[in-house]
């Protein structure tokens, strides 16, 4: 079966859109949410939970972020960037592990 290149292309299009397309949050804030790095309190707490322990997100996390000046549309974008960012790191880690595992096999296959 040929490589399903449409999968990677569709994933890249999603990542590119949320990071580089038009948004209410700045591209820098979206990049920081995506990487879960460099955001200031209190929004960093919300974004950190989205990335690593999303079941612990509460109304209070959103309320604190809004009180610090973020609009709902900005938080909508930043939460999405955090979720896409964390899952993208997993996707890339899995593909890298697969590449390493299959490169090692190639000399046998080539003979």
């Amino acid at each position, binding site marked *: 079966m040929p490589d399903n290149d449409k*999968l990677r292309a569709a994933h890249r*299009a999603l990542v590119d859109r949320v990071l580089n*397309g038009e948004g209410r949050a700045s591209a820098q804030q979206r990049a920081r949410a995506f990487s879960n790095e460099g955001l200031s309190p209190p929004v960093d707490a919300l974004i950190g939970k989205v990335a690593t322990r999303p079941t612990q997100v509460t109304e209070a996390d959103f309320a604190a972020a809004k009180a610090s000046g973020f609009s709902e*549309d900005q938080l*909508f974008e930043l939460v999405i960037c955090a979720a896409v960012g964390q899952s993208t790191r*997993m996707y890339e880690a899995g593909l890298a592990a697969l590449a390493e595992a299959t490169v090692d096999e190639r000399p046998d296959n080539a003979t």
Partner: protein
Amino acid sequence: MRLDILDRGYRPSTKLLFALIRLFSGHPVPDAAKLVFYRPDFYGAQAKAFTHEAMRGPSAWSVGDRELMAAYVSKLNESAFCIGAHTATATQAYQDGPRVAAVLADLESAPVEEPLRATLRMLGKLTAEGKLGAEDMREVLAAGVSPQQVKDSLAVCAAFNTTDRLADAFGFEVLTPEGFDAGAKYLLKRGYR
């Protein structure tokens, strides 16, 4: 949901669509569907395209296998909405509820094929720990899974690690069993587009 815009921020045409769906299906529009209708240019359009390709695009994995992967990843993330949605969808796709329930209860003792078990184990480790080594992948390949099947499963894993996070962060309302069954029927008929 935890953002008012996700409950009330839709265009009139979208609100009308939601009302029609409620009328004809007998169920409110699930929050997962509402999310992709909010400013679809930002997230919904691209997310639907990727998720549909991962779940319904060409693959040696069956639709049931991929829905089971989605349910399994959601189980590890303890994402209540997505566990319910994809348990129901995998159950309908396989026409086999006990098979799905057994995997979610205990993967190692569940009566499933070894390639699928090895793949689910790998996706579980990636979801729980956020990383994997080449040795983990060699075990999956040794179980008879092709490299392309691994790639396909990683895409399912990526799609649902995203959706699970959004479901829990935005606070998707968990549906009734009938609501999840209706949603599953829709997902099997129409996919994620």
